[in-house]
């Protein structure tokens, strides 16, 4: 879009070329939803600034990252799964489970590095288990990850029914350290971790063989098989990636809350799925970007921020707004992909 503005000066034919290229981008199912999300985000931010005092500050923007770092990581994992046309319902429970494992092991005196390693390995193994159920035993992703959801939530209760608080100095320092970004603005270390995860995921999806296979699988699994792509391995691996991301997300969540509690993060999987859809990933697989998903998380965060600024609106309006946004984006995707059918 920006190129149309910049290249308006040269010869007439060139202008027309870029214009039609621009139109193609705006109406393509690949880019259009992301652009709409970006436009929406900017529009919401601008209207927020017009409407409320103290809204247009860098810190309001940065707090979107600070408060939603764990959700960004979660949405990245979910993007991999949805790109292949699958779904992962277990992620919310896995956040609770990994925060619980962290809290319990730290309570037992295990050093922080070991705790994080054990947590990430455990959640990746859970993802591996679900992936194997889906690929080897041909269980529907919906059902396999539903079982994973029950298992993770149940294990939380088995570890402890009560909330366990975290006093480990490393975790506390991760929670309280702020990195100044000039002025009074600052971010947490979790934000940097989340952005790193997004960067790695972007690289993997767009510049690695594995990433291309993920897109191919979502486009058409049969064609992928006929092309000799490692369909089975990739299918299992996306669930491992999602498990790992949920683990990282759980660790970030425990940095954020400094406790483990078995009832936390109920329904977070829906937020993650909503963020991925709003971020422009097609639920049937094949189209979508991790950057879009991160943007989707920011839109969800902005809705919450605006509702808290509004003051008179109760917090349950958040759910209604998210539902309405989902509807708009799904219908938009439908319209954009219709012409291709």
């Amino acid at each position, binding site marked *: 879009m920006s190129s149309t503005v910049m290249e308006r000066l040269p010869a007439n034919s060139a202008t027309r070329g870029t214009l039609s290229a621009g139109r193609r981008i705006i109406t393509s199912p690949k880019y259009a939803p992301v652009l709409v999300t970006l436009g929406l985000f900017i529009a919401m931010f601008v209207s927020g600034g017009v409407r409320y005092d103290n809204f247009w500050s860098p810190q309001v923007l940065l707090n979107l990252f600070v408060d939603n770092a764990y959700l960004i990581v979660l949405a990245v994992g979910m993007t991999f799964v949805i790109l292949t046309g699958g*779904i992962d319902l277990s992620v919310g429970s896995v956040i609770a489970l990994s925060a619980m494992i962290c809290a319990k092991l730290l309570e037992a005196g295990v050093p922080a590095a070991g705790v994080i390693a054990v947590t990430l390995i455990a959640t990746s193994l859970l993802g591996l288990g679900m992936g194997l*159920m889906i690929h*080897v*035993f*041909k*269980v*529907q992703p*919906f*059902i*396999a990850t*539903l*079982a*994973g*959801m*029950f*298992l993770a*939530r*149940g*294990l939380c*209760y*088995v570890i402890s*029914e009560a909330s366990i608080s975290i006093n480990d100095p490393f975790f506390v320092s991760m929670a309280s350290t702020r990195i100044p970004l000039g002025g009074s603005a600052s971010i947490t270390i979790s934000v940097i971790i989340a952005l790193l995860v997004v960067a790695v995921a972007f690289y993997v999806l767009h510049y690695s063989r594995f990433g291309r296979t993920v897109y191919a699988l979502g486009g058409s699994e049969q064609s992928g098989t006929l092309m000799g792509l490692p369909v089975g391995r990739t299918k299992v691996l996306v669930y491992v990636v999602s498990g790992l991301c949920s683990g990282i997300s759980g660790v970030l969540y425990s940095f954020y809350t400094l406790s483990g509690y078995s009832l936390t993060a109920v329904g977070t999987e*829906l937020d993650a*799925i*909503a963020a991925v*859809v709003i971020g422009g990933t097609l*639920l*049937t697989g094949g189209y979508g970007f991790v950057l879009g998903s991160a943007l989707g998380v920011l839109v969800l965060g902005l809705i919450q921020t605006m509702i808290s600024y509004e003051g008179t609106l*109760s917090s*349950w*309006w*958040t*759910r*209604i707004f*998210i*539902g*309405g946004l*989902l*509807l708009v984006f*799904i*219908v938009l995707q*439908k319209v954009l992909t219709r012409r291709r059918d």
Partner: protein
Amino acid sequence: MSAQLRNFTGSRVFWPVVILVGLIIVDVIAFPGFLDITVKEGHLFGAPIDILRNGAPTLLIAVGMTLVIATRGIDLSVGSIAAISGAVVSALLLNSPTPDNPWTVVQAVGIALILGFILGVWNGTLVAYLKIQPIIATLILMTAGRGVAMLITEGQILTLHSKPFEWFGSGFIAGFPVAVVIAAVVLILTMLVVRRSALGMFIESVGINPEASRQAGIRSRGLLLGIYAFCALLAALAGLIITSDQTAADANNTGLFIELDAILAVVIGGTSLMGGRFSLIGTLVGVLVIQTLVTTVYIVGIPPVATMVFKAIVVIAVSLLQSPTTNEKFANWRKDRRRPTPTKAIEPTREKVSA
């Protein structure tokens, strides 16, 4: 006889029934009086009755869900619809000057059910006319619905005092709890309508191949719309029973995760999420397996907190046992054992029709 037996062991309901019987045996060993039913003041009491009563809302929703899944769809919004219908009834009864008047209750219940039906029409419109994937179309209402229910109750837990309405949750008809009777009537009527008319065939045909059934002259759009509306209507009914049982409307927790239990029951009962053939009897078995499992966990003395782990184990066990991969291995193994007899006896054991 042996042919019938082989039919049964090959059917998809076989493993769920085995698991159900296994659970009941465990219960009887742990608690010898498990299957006893006593009569007090003309009402039936006992663990089996409790299982039926607690399973009734799930069964109601699972019946609707079976039909939705048979059309290759899914309805995630049932829990939210149950919460909305509970909230609407409570708000109407609380604001009414005569909450003990049966006519007031009938009106409130009627409004809640109609609202549920309308929400179902909304779902159905998104799926049938806008052609949005069912899982996403119903995700919208699942997310927004609980917000709407919170708006209706204004974030409060509404406690109800209405004798006629409490009858839904704690009354008895001919000795049986009202909820059980309602669920049984709905199940039997649905089975009759679906199996005695061509409706069941239409549903399966839409689920197997929407395009082919359209060309065969089935009005799949209207059919889909009707089925989503029916499912939502049953969800609203289940919401009423839950609310009446708890004598309170809790917008956050009424029907929370009930969509997952219902989908689980349908899948355990042998209806594939890929659509097509469905089995309402299987769904009944699925609901009973889930509810008996919960009761078993209590009776055997496993801490109730571990219920979810056991649920997960049962889901994994059932889905692995029903998996085509396992069935192939199993069929090969049986073939090997039967090798001395002429090969004529070998028949495909997969995908047997289950009533």
